[in-house]
């Protein structure tokens, strides 16, 4: 067992990082880990930090390894944000941390998990520190692609590129780490198109799998305009329901927390002067629910897109693996019923619906137009 176990399907990147840990001449003070969403950027960065702290180069068992992976090692700072951006103030604090000598005597590692969430002037604050940190400080920045950070940052870092991991590798990780059933894990990994986080959700949550299958089933069930409108209705209700269950509990907790901080006891009515506070919270929660609903719909559309991608693959006779292997039957019958041109038009319609949803078009209407485009046409 090593710290690298969870970095799946990235043999080349892992080899580079391991070499840096083992051989001082291959080490650099600033790294930029890039890769598509779900490829395990932050996992790789953490593993690298752990390997640097570990006396055996990443055994995965010692105190240094476990604390680093758990995010509690005193010399490893992990920066991630749930907000839209990382602020200048947070970054200035980091620079202060960077000049300190490591307390355990090995490395001081600073991992910025969303380097793409720093504004231009925020990254400028970092330039000096990244260029010439103290001898024992290592910066590890993560971003979806090299283009997401400024050229001035890029040129100061050594790049490590992660690829989309093979579905088998992701499935193997799900089996090993989460104890998923091998067959389920493989289909989940394929369905999520190797996005580790999504695959994990699909493998662990039977409800999520069912919802996905239900969404894809719609493609076959739409026989006419009426069906299309009903299917859109169903999809929107599904999304609403999912958003509600996902946010309901959190909403109640936040509300109770606010009431407590306002000094209003259980069962007491809120004084009129404080009502605006509660209203503000409720509005935020409503916005969050809307956002969540939209995300759910967007995911459903991406799933549909993957289905039609498969249809196109079959129609063109390409020798590529299907994303939705378990729906091969549906894919084949859809492929037989239509021409590649129609499939491309349908994929376009899905893309248009996604764009419209982003542009705040009424979700039901956008989906209706999409579903209508999916119906069999002569």
């Amino acid at each position, binding site marked *: 067992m090593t710290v690298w176990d969870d970095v799946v399907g990235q043999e080349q990147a892992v080899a580079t990082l391991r070499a840096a840990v083992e051989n001082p001449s291959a080490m650099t003070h600033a790294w930029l880990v890039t890769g598509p969403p779900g490829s395990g950027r932050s996992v790789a960065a953490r593993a690298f930090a752990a390997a640097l702290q570990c006396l055996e180069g990443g055994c995965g068992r010692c105190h240094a390894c476990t604390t680093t992976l758990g995010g509690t090692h005193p010399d490893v700072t992990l920066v991630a944000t749930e907000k839209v951006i990382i602020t200048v103030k947070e970054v200035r604090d980091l620079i202060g941390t960077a000049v300190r000598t490591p307390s355990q005597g090995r490395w001081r590692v600073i991992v910025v998990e969303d380097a793409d969430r720093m504004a231009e002037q925020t990254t400028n604050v970092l330039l000096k520190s990244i260029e010439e940190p103290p001898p024992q400080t290592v910066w590890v920045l993560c971003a979806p692609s090299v283009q997401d950070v400024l050229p001035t940052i890029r040129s100061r870092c050594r790049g490590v590129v992660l690829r989309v991991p093979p579905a088998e590798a992701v499935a193997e990780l799900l089996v090993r780490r989460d104890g998923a059933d091998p067959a389920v894990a493989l289909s989940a990994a394929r369905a999520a198109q190797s996005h580790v986080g999504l695959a994990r959700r699909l493998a662990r949550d039977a409800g999520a799998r069912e919802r996905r299958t239900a969404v894809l089933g719609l493609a076959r069930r739409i026989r*006419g*305009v*009426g*069906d*299309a*409108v*009903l299917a859109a*209705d169903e999809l929107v209700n599904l999304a609403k329901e999912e958003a509600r269950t996902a946010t309901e509990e959190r909403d109640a907790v936040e509300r109770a927390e606010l009431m407590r901080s306002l000094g209003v006891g259980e069962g007491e009515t809120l004084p009129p002067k404080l009502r605006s506070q509660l209203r503000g919270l409720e509005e935020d929660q409503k916005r969050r629910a809307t956002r969540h609903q939209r995300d759910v719909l967007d995911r459903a559309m991406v799933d549909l897109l993957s289905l039609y991608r498969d249809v196109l693959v079959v129609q063109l006779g390409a020798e590529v693996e299907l994303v939705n292997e378990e729906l091969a039957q549906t894919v084949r019958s859809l492929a037989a019923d239509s021409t590649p041109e129609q499939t491309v038009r349908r994929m376009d319609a899905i893309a248009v619906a996604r*764009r*419209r949803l982003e*542009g*705040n*078009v*009424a979700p*039901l*209407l*956008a989906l*209706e*137009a999409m579903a*209508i*485009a999916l*119906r069999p046409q002569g």
Partner: protein
Amino acid sequence: MGGTWQALLVPPATRARRSSAPARSWDEPTLAPVVLVRGAEPLLTERAVDGVVRLARERDPELEKVELEGATYGAGQLTVAASPSLFGEAKVVVILGADAGTEDLMADTIAYVARPDPETTVIVVHGGGQRGKKMLDTVTASGAPVMTCDPIAKDAEKAQFVANEFRAAGRRADASAVRALVEALGSDLRELSAACSQLVADTTGTINEGVVDRYYGGRVEATGFKVADAAVDGDTGRAVALLRHALDTGVDPVPMVAALAIRLRVLAKVAAMRGGGITARELGIAPWQVDRAQKDLRRWTPEGLAAAISAVAQADAEVKGEGRDPVFAVERAVMAIAQARRG
């Protein structure tokens, strides 16, 4: 007065049983030390207040009328206004906008209701809402008459209102004239009543549709739904005219597109229903909508419906920032719908 005091001391359940006069309509004024006028239709509340004041004036022509504004009320104003004047004439105190009243107003009114001055009439006007609920409860519980002035929503009720207006003025009006008037001016009750009095003043004889048309012809209350109806009927000219009318009288393009979408959605759902297996109840469509949609569907092909819904979705995107001119986007969608209908 002592009796009322005791009434306040008994538990609420007993008190409620003993009092609270039945609610009466806005056109049945009555005299009492305290009268509550409740409801969100300003024209009717005004008439209710006028009715009570008229009754009071019949009793005492020397009447003095004082108006207090709820939102700017200061402590003690009610007592000052309601106390007997130097020359002993009767008083009517009208408290306007009690729904936006200050805390002082609530407290003073509650105190006054407990021992009202029998010579004075206090009219509390409350426009609805939850504010001042305790005051309202106390006033109703004291047995004060309550006049309700709820907004008139249904067309049939509006027609009834118009007919009553003409009858009160001693004039006869055709049913068709009443309907035409409601169709032209139905959205604002005040405007409707003003139109009635204008017709009464300017014309003689029976008021018929021709008279209404002469005065109010060309005025159409265009809503998104009417535009949608015209478009679904395939009447391009009328649909576009109504659309322009609606946009010019302040309907926003966004709800307009939503109305088009709703209308087409019902058509599509009813079309799906024909295949069997689903009932209107499951789809949440009212029976009259189903009837109408089935009638409309005779002139619609699935392809036409598909084109129409796609056009509306495109218009929604354009109205919300994808296009430059929202009005043009809606107009194009309306024309696309009308043309998508089979010949």
